[in-house]
């Protein structure tokens, strides 16, 4: 970090929660100092928004210099987000930003995701709107080497649905939440979400929204929140640049437990539920530190104590949450803490700027601050109940979350989960099926579809009417001579793929179904009726008067009987081996289906 600028900032060390006036004064002061000391290679950040950022930017500049590195900031003209992104010659790209930040405007988003009584419809349009912004962000990535941040939208505080606003799909808070969810699900590499929503909730949603300022000058939120917003942003960028702190060095007495181990002894220190409220508070703090360790933060101890005395609680005390093995370094001696910190940094092979020193003693804190200015010092004051929030809200260890989610998971499986969810909420089947917007496609099996069709014939057990399993060769032969049909299905959530296959032959005036399978994925979609209608057409074109099929019962395909009857088939004969002959007279009406034919153009772009 640059020397002189940071020094002068340290003398005005305001807290992120300080009011706007203080933030503004600090920002102005920093700005004045900067004028004679231009920074080498500042971090370049571009902001695109539909709100006024004029007062936020200087505060961000100040916090960025404090927490990471000086910046140069470009703000696109008000409400020019799309044009700046889509025009390759815009000022945005000329600026050559290292980071591009999109601040989405809640009212604009809500206009694209209108209220609707059906949750799946709202979820659908939220996904579409989120997708639109992700696509815009991606086009930035295509045009310049940068990293894009999208700020999550903040719900309005007085939505029209009142008590139901966050719970009902007609509420505005509900719709904003669905948009955020969709952003989280869709966000790809190269784009990071900035959780502005959580900052707003922490600040207080009612205080966050300042309608008078919005109407007057399009400030998106209370200026008193600028400190925490700018601090949060600078820690996010620090995390992205690998500058999250790596080691938490802790004092022991009155930091990890109540009391002084050297004086009170193993049984006298207060830690754990048996030691009352104070013990519980320290145990909670230890639990928080343990979770930090789970996330890869190294823990170390730096204490003025005899080594063996300091070690004992970690090995023997039942109330301790942190154990000996949780620590990567343990310096308990009577040397000064600065020397110990240097030793720890060396042992763990990290720079001093990766260390956070946590102590309840203001004298020790002050000493370390002066002896080792690169070390971040956290003074824990008063009440252990506040230790977690004091440490946590400095955002020192925060790193961007890398999801382990398997991105190769096929779209079909993800879509299936969504369908299941949608179905559970449906009022009745007809409305549900209609809302799915089912589209069917059919065709004769050829080179491109034979493999998949043959696979389906062999692996389908439940809806398998005849259980005939031809070899691939037989099937290929049949596809040239007789009728071999595939059926594909999609709905508004996605593609099902080929889900039904029929092998048939016309003999005299009968269309004989030799094989008919249907994937269980496509049950309850009226696909069997869609197939039947195709078979009826084929039968008619071959001047058949009846369709017949020999059902062979197995332990698994019992549902076929009911399905055939529902389509209009009738049992005609049961053979000795329990095979049952079903027929359908073509004079009967074709069964109705909820599946519409896919348009020809869509058939051209569909994929296997």
């Amino acid at each position, binding site marked *: 970090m640059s020397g002189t600028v940071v020094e002068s900032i340290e003398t005005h060390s305001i807290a992120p929660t300080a*009011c*706007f*006036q203080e933030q*503004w*004064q600090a920002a*102005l002061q920093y700005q*004045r100092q900067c004028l004679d000391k231009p920074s080498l290679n500042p971090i370049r950040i571009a902001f695109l928004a539909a709100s006024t950022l*004029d*007062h936020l930017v200087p505060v961000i500049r100040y916090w960025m210099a404090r927490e990471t590195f000086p910046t140069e900031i470009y703000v696109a003209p008000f409400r020019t987000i799309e044009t700046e992104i889509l025009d390759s010659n815009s000022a945005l790209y000329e600026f050559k930003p290292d980071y591009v930040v999109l601040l989405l405007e809640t009212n604009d988003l809500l206009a694209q995701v209108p209220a609707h009584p059906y949750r799946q419809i709202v979820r659908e349009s939220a996904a579409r709107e989120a997708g639109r912004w992700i696509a815009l962000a991606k086009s930035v990535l295509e045009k310049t080497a940068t990293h894009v941040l999208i700020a999550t939208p903040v719900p309005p505080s007085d939505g029209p649905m009142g008590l139901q606003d966050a719970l009902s799909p007609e509420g505005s808070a509900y719709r904003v939440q669905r948009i955020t969810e969709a952003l989280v699900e869709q966000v790809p590499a190269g784009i990071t979400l900035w959780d502005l929503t959580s900052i707003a909730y922490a600040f207080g949603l009612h205080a966050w929204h300042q*309608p*008078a*300022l919005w*109407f*007057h*000058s399009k*400030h998106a939120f209370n*200026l008193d929140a600028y400190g925490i917003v700018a601090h949060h942003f600078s820690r996010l960028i620090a995390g992205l640049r690998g500058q999250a702190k790596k080691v938490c060095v802790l004092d022991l007495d009155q930091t990890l437990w109540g009391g002084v181990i050297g004086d009170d002894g193993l049984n006298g220190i207060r830690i754990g539920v048996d030691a009352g409220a104070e013990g519980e508070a320290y145990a909670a703090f230890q639990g928080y530190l343990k979770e930090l360790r789970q996330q890869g933060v190294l823990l170390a101890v730096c204490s003025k104590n005899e080594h063996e005395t300091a070690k004992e609680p970690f090995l023997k005390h039942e109330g301790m949450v942190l154990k000996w093995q949780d620590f990567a370094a343990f310096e308990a001696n009577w040397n000064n803490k600065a020397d110990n910190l240097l030793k720890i940094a060396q042992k763990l092979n990290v720079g001093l700027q990766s260390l956070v020193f946590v102590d309840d003693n203001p004298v020790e804190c002050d000493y370390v601050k002066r002896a080792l200015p690169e070390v971040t010092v956290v003074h824990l004051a008063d009440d252990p109940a506040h230790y977690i929030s004091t440490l946590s809200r400095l955002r020192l260890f925060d790193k961007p979350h890398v999801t382990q989610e398997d991105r190769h998971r096929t779209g079909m499986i993800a879509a299936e989960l969504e369908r299941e969810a949608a179905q559970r909420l449906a009022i009745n089947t007809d409305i549900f099926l209609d809302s799915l917007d089912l589209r069917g496609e059919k065709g004769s099996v050829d080179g491109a579809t034979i493999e998949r069709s043959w696979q389906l014939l062999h692996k389908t057990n439940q809806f398998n009417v005849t259980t005939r399993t031809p070899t691939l060769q037989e099937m290929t032969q049949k596809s040239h001579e007789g009728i071999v049909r595939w059926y594909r299905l999609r709905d508004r959530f996605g593609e099902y793929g080929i889900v039904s296959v029929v092998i048939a032959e016309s003999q005299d005036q009968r269309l004989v179904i030799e094989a008919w399978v249907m994937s269980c994925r496509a049950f309850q979609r009226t696909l069997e009726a869609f197939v039947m209608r195709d078979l009826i057409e084929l039968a008619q074109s071959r001047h058949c008067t009846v369709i017949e099929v020999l059902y062979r019962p197995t332990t698994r395909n019992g549902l076929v009987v009911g399905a055939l009857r529902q389509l209009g088939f009738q049992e005609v004969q049961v053979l000795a081996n329990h095979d049952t002959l079903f027929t359908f007279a073509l004079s009967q009406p074709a069964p109705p289906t909820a599946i519409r034919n896919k348009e020809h153009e869509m058939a051209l772009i569909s994929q296997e």
Partner: protein
Amino acid sequence: MLQTQDRAVILNRLNQIIGQQLGLTNIHLSESTTAKEVPGWDSLAHVTIILAIEKEYQFKLRTSEIGKLQDVAGLVDMILQRGVIKAS
């Protein structure tokens, strides 16, 4: 407890507040000064000045008022009318 104060006392305090927001020491605004005449008092600074005054005197300007108060006399009037003048 409300105390009636001189316009002069308020004017003095306004000089301090506005000076601080604009980063100017020793400014001497009179009641007849308008925003246009003061270096740096643009729409950006106007918002910070209004917010500082609201905080100091503990009242909120109405939406329609924020943009209209572009002269010092108007500010003094507003403070006398609506502000909470503390004993200093």
